[in-house]
């Protein structure tokens, strides 16, 4: 049974926050870092406390560390070597495999994220701006008294209007599918993956293979921990809207093109497999129905939902593509940064996009597979394409829309997104945090 009083809340709950801040941290020396971990570990919310949802308890802080951060805190070399290779190497070293080349290359990344001195991230959620200001001020004051810990960069995340549904800057409704973990009292919605074993996301538990895989040492540090893959993706809203206009004469046609890229209607998330011709608001917002579909039986050729669309690549639902879909899941957390671009506004070229953390137990098997194969492999289902949103695109590309009698190809798509940041972190349990704080 997952120890909810030791697991950080981050991957298990969604606090009722409208605003968040990521502070990327460096430790000038180990003792300062340990003091900081010790000071903050008491306000890190556990899954148990945050799930209890007390309106006054807003301990929504999460702490995670890079490999260099664990070393700086004084973790011994034997333990460091027991961490898996992708984490030890860091995301920059894995860039070519992940497809982070050309304009997406780490040389172009923002926020000092590729610095060797990046040691930790503190993720702060707040109910509103006032609460965020209070927390940030408190953290800043703490740092004044503990000068060996510095902020390398900060990123502010805030929901974009309209606020009645969660969406990113292109306007696609978000958070429609998330893995459910066995034994914590949440039932998956119809059509979703069956509950995952805790070990798919938290170290120290049996995973879908039925056994506890080899874990990093010592156990007190790794147990109840998870790995996080951070990705910051800039969204080129102007280019995206231009593309829709170039490929659809009417608003309805443009919405259909947008839906074909995603596999769901933009504003409601209603799946194309279930409503291929027009949006269905009621269906989109009905959690019992909006994931209740497959591809193999209901849309084998992709006439409704193109085989190359985002949701069909990233969550295949299809045994012919993979028998181990339940071993490729990630828990996605994050939100939008940058200013909102109203529908009728000219492109202002501002930096806006999404900044997300993908949580999992095995970076190579879960996160890296999703990005390098399902998002970026041109051979995926013989399409010679990449994922229109999650793929690393550095030239014109195509999307095939199966259609009778002859398929249609959307040509000359420009990249709608650019990867502008990324790093691997380890998110320990509370005992793990205390252990790190106690190192010498």
């Amino acid at each position, binding site marked *: 049974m997952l120890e909810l009083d030791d697991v950080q809340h981050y991957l298990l709950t969604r606090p009722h926050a409208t605003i968040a801040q990521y502070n990327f941290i460096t430790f000038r020396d180990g003792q300062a870092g340990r003091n900081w971990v010790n000071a903050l570990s008491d306000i890190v919310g556990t899954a148990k406390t945050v799930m209890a949802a007390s309106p006054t308890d807003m301990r929504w802080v999460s702490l995670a560390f890079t490999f260099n951060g664990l070393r700086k805190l004084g973790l011994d070399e034997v333990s460091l070597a027991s961490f*898996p*290779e*992708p984490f030890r190497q860091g995301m920059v070293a*894995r860039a*070519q*495999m992940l497809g982070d080349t050309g304009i997406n290359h780490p040389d172009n990344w923002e926020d000092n994220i590729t610095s060797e001195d990046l040691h930790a991230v503190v993720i702060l959620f707040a109910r509103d701006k006032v609460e965020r200001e209070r927390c940030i001020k408190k953290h800043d004051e703490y740092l004044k008294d503990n000068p060996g810990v510095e902020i390398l960069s900060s990123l502010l995340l805030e929901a974009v209007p309209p606020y009645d549904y969660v969406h990113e800057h292109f306007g696609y409704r978000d958070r429609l599918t998330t893995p459910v973990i066995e034994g914590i009292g949440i039932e998956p919605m119809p059509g979703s993956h069956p509950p995952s074993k805790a070990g798919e996301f938290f170290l120290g538990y049996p995973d879908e*293979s039925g*056994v*506890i*895989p*080899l874990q990093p040492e010592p156990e007190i540090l790794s147990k109840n921990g998870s790995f996080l893959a951070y990705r910051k993706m800039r969204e080129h809203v102007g280019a995206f809207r231009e593309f829709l206009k170039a490929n659809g004469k009417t608003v309805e046609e443009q919405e259909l093109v947008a839906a074909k890229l995603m596999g769901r209607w933009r504003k409601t998330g209603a799946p194309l497999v279930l409503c291929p011709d027009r949006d269905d608001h009621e269906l989109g917002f009905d959690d019992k129905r909006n994931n209740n579909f497959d591809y193999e039986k209901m849309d084998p050729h992709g006439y409704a939902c193109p085989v190359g669309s985002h949701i069909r690549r990233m969550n295949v639902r299809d*045994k*012919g*593509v*993979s*028998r*181990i879909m339940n*071993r490729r899941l990630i828990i996605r957390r994050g939100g939008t940064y940058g200013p909102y671009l109203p529908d009728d506004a000219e492109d202002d070229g501002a930096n806006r996009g999404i900044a997300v953390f993908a949580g999992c137990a095995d970076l*190579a*098997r879960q996160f*890296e*597979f999703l990005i*390098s*194969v399902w998002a970026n*492999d041109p*051979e995926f289902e*013989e399409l*010679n394409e990449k994922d229109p949103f999650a793929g690393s695109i550095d030239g014109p590309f195509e999307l095939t829309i199966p259609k009778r009698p002859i398929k249609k190809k959307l040509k000359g798509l420009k990249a709608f997104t650019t990867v502008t940041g990324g790093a691997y972190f380890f998110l320990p349990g509370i005992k793990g945090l205390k252990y790190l704080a106690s190192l010498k």
Partner: protein
Amino acid sequence: MSNTKNGWSTPAALAIPKEGYFKKEDGRYGPLFPQTPANYGFTVIVKVKPGREEAIREYGKTIEAAVKASPDVLAPLKLHYLRWVLFDVGSGLHFMYQGIFDTDFDKYMEDAIALFNSTGVTTVFVNLEGFPEDWKTNIPAVTKFFREHQCPSFLEYGEYPYVSADEIKKALKLKEAFSEMLDQMQ
């Protein structure tokens, strides 16, 4: 449509450097091996533990039965052919496992290992020297084992180069449908 280079109708051969690749490009678990006119593939050669020949041969039947019971059991691997060979050229009995795929093996490593486990293939590997004892919990060690025993080709040839199994199946289906259509018109 996969990369057909000069087209499927022009047979092609490709000589491959000793390392098995032209330019080092890393996948998740090590260097990626290039697509050749004979598509992607691997050849794993490992020495058999003494006295295990019969155990390995028996598993031929197990796999035959698994595929018969569930013909699409290996579908995710995008395979053309698998060949299992036992041979002894004077240095003891060796097992050769050769596969031809439409995708780099690195991409579907975990699918392959899961399939090995579910079809019982892994229990063949325990008869091979050096297969990790803790294979159930230590996937990186299993991956490393295959990587270390992989012998890259130095030449590969394709009579119909770069054609994928899916393309072949589609063409045969089309032929079938077309013949049926002509029959219907009689």
